[in-house]
């Protein structure tokens, strides 16, 4: 029988690193049933036992206020993992343990993995692990996830706990709360056991949640009114005694416990007498004068590398590889096998040509994702939110919307997904609606192609201007939406600024690949299919006879019908019209369609032929109009589906 270990921890505590360390490379990303959120699940391959590792979203608390919190809690309560591995950032024990106290309250098997022990040592602090273990009454294991240290011992311990629990049941847990609260919990527990015949091991947790006024638990248990009244008496009594509302009393009580544990178990070298490296970096990065210019310079730098020499080198390299080496090789192979002319044309012209014109941009997109991963993994993204909050608030957004928007430069799909970290529903909706205006990685091939053809001397500048155009349109739309259909109060902005960390190369690669593989996958499936269909449609006419001129084909007919709509924009030819249609399937298909329609792969010179072909069909002005239109007209199908799903999926009220 397989064992289930769930990974739970605060955001930024090294959860993903640990997950990758335990599972190796065989991870996959799946969706949660019912609600859609990324859940990773992997097998612990390095261990002989059959262990499934479930990576839950990074959360600060199990309170039912954000979707991630609800999902994590529901998973632990309903799916009952054998062991919950709680990753605790050893440099920030006091706050991290807040979540631990809630896991202990739940009465599940908890093993605490104390991560980043190297950072603690570097600071000169000492943690008494034995004392920590005896105060929490759960196993505590020191690890350094980024170096893979202590991971084996951790999994062994978790296995041990799972096996002991299976035979001996749950061991006793530490009491978090003070006497007067515990008394109330016990009374309520008695009542629920009596009145609802709830004798399961969770009755104590239910009692605590009911005392806390948790509406989700009230709903699931279907508490009768008389019992609610009884609970209200306890709540009133405590609220009167403590002079605070009940939620605050419980939260307060948990923090009293964690600060008590932290004080006893940690010996700090000295109290913030000197600046840490993080503080020093922050002095520059969030400096009053330097912060914003630095941010803009950084973005410009990223674009320069992505679209400058390095970017174009990768394009040329892949171009020669696909359109010369591979195309010639396959062509010769087909000729010597005596393949039919149409098959030769389909494979070389349609598939290799169509996919090739898109594949050349994969390295460039990977470079962009690589930089975005650096921004995120170092902790700079959070600073960007801190610096930009004031500006974004003018649009009625919070600094937190900034991170999803930045991710939107990579791909709208994960960007829309990442809006789940916003607690405010209106904020979230507005952010989702504005994300498609951020120039995503898939629009990049279009820009790269057209700027190479028409603005070779100012490529970076022109691409940068398109990115800015998207941002300006987003700002205007934001103001408009906020004034009309999305009126409401300004959302709160309470966020952790994680310490700067030097990202590991492995971590960056995994992060980059996680994002980029979606793009490659799309190339392999959607673009492949689109390339075949488009080739077919442009090879035959309506009576299914091969045509010599693509303009006489089915595609030519479709294109000519809709082309007049685009002629006021300056690109009323049928090829552009068809390319924009396929762009709805996937933005990168615009380029591959152009490749097929201009019959590029059959030429030997590679994409310079496409450039020449475009130069006769467009002027610099219409080329810019075409790029702007590709940016603004419609997000791709995948983004569309994600947006629709996300806009419906979360209704708090």
């Amino acid at each position, binding site marked *: 029988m397989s064992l289930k270990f769930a990974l739970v921890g605060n955001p930024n505590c090294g959860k993903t690193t640990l997950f990758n360390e335990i599972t190796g490379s065989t991870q996959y990303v799946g969706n949660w049933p019912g609600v859609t959120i990324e859940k990773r699940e992997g097998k612990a391959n390095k261990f002989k036992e059959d262990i499934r590792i479930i990576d839950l979203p990074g959360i600060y608390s199990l309170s039912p206020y954000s979707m991630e919190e609800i999902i994590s809690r529901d998973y632990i309560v309903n799916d009952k993992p054998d062991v919950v591995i709680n990753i605790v950032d050893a440099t920030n024990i006091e*706050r991290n343990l807040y979540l631990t106290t809630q896991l202990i309250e739940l009465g599940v098997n908890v093993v605490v993995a104390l991560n980043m022990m190297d950072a603690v040592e570097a600071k000169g602090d000492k943690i008494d692990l034995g004392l920590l273990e005896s105060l929490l009454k759960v196993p505590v294991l020191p690890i350094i996830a980024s170096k893979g240290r202590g991971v084996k011992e951790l999994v062994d311990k978790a296995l041990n706990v799972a096996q002991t629990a299976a035979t001996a049941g749950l061991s006793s847990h530490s009491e978090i709360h003070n006497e007067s609260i515990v008394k109330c919990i016990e009374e309520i527990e008695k009542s629920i056991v009596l009145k609802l015949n709830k004798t399961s091991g969770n009755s104590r947790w239910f009692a605590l949640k009911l005392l806390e006024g948790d509406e989700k638990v009230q709903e699931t248990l279907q508490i009768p009114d008389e019992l609610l009244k009884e609970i209200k008496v306890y709540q009133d009594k405590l609220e009167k005694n403590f002079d605070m509302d009940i939620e605050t009393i419980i939260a307060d009580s948990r923090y009293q416990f964690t600060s008590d544990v932290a004080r006893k178990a940690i010996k700090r070298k000295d109290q913030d007498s000197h600046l840490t490296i993080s503080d020093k970096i922050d002095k520059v990065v969030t400096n009053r004068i330097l912060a914003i210019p630095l941010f803009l310079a950084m973005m410009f730098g990223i674009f320069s590398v992505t679209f400058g020499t390095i970017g174009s080198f990768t394009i040329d390299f892949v171009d020669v590889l696909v359109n010369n080496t591979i195309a010639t090789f396959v062509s010769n192979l087909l000729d010597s096998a005596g393949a039919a002319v149409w098959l030769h044309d389909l494979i070389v012209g349609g598939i290799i040509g169509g996919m090739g014109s898109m594949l050349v941009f994969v390295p460039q997109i990977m470079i962009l994702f690589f930089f975005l991963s650096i921004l995120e993994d170092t902790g700079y993204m959070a600073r960007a939110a801190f610096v930009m909050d004031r500006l974004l608030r003018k649009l009625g957004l919070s600094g937190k919307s900034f991170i999803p928007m930045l991710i939107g430069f990579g791909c709208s799909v994960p960007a829309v997904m990442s809006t789940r970290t916003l607690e405010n529903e209106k904020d979230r909706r507005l952010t989702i609606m504005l994300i498609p205006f951020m120039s995503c990685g898939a629009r990049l091939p279009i820009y790269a192609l057209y700027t190479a053809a028409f603005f070779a001397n100012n490529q970076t500048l022109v691409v940068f201007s398109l990115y800015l155009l998207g941002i300006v349109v987003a700002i205007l739309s934001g103001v408009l939406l906020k004034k009309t259909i999305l009126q409401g109060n300004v959302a709160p902005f309470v*966020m952790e600024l994680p310490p700067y960390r030097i990202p590991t190369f492995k971590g960056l690669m995994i992060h980059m690949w996680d994002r980029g593989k979606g793009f490659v996958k799309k190339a392999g499936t959607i673009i492949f299919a689109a390339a075949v269909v488009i080739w077919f449609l442009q090879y035959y006419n309506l009576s299914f006879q091969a045509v010599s001129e693509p303009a006489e084909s089915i595609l030519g007919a479709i294109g000519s019908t809709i082309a007049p709509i685009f002629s006021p924009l300056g690109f009323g030819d049928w090829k552009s019209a068809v390319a924009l249609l396929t762009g709805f399937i996937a933005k990168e298909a615009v380029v591959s369609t152009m490749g097929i329609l201009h019959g590029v792969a059959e030429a030997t010179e590679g994409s310079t032929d496409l450039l020449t072909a475009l130069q006769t069909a467009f002027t610099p002005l219409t080329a810019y109009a075409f790029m702007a239109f590709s940016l603004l007209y419609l997000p791709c199908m995948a983004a569309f589906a994600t947006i629709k799903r996300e806009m419906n999926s979360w209704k708090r009220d």
Partner: protein
Amino acid sequence: MERTLKELKPGEKAKIAKVLGEKGAIKKRLMDMGVTRGAEVLVRKVAPLGDPIEVNIRGYELTLRKSEAENIILE
């Protein structure tokens, strides 16, 4: 007059007495992040555009807006 976190200048330190406001997501979020009675806050800095502020609380860095800091009463 009660002092609030908003009035604290960068480099100044104080203990939290109370968090005002209605029960709900904002307040709960502050609680979860450790902004509770008795916690010591040190104001680190103000963002370049004048808002939000960065504070050190319970050994980590937290950012919040002045409008939220206004609801945090100090001892």
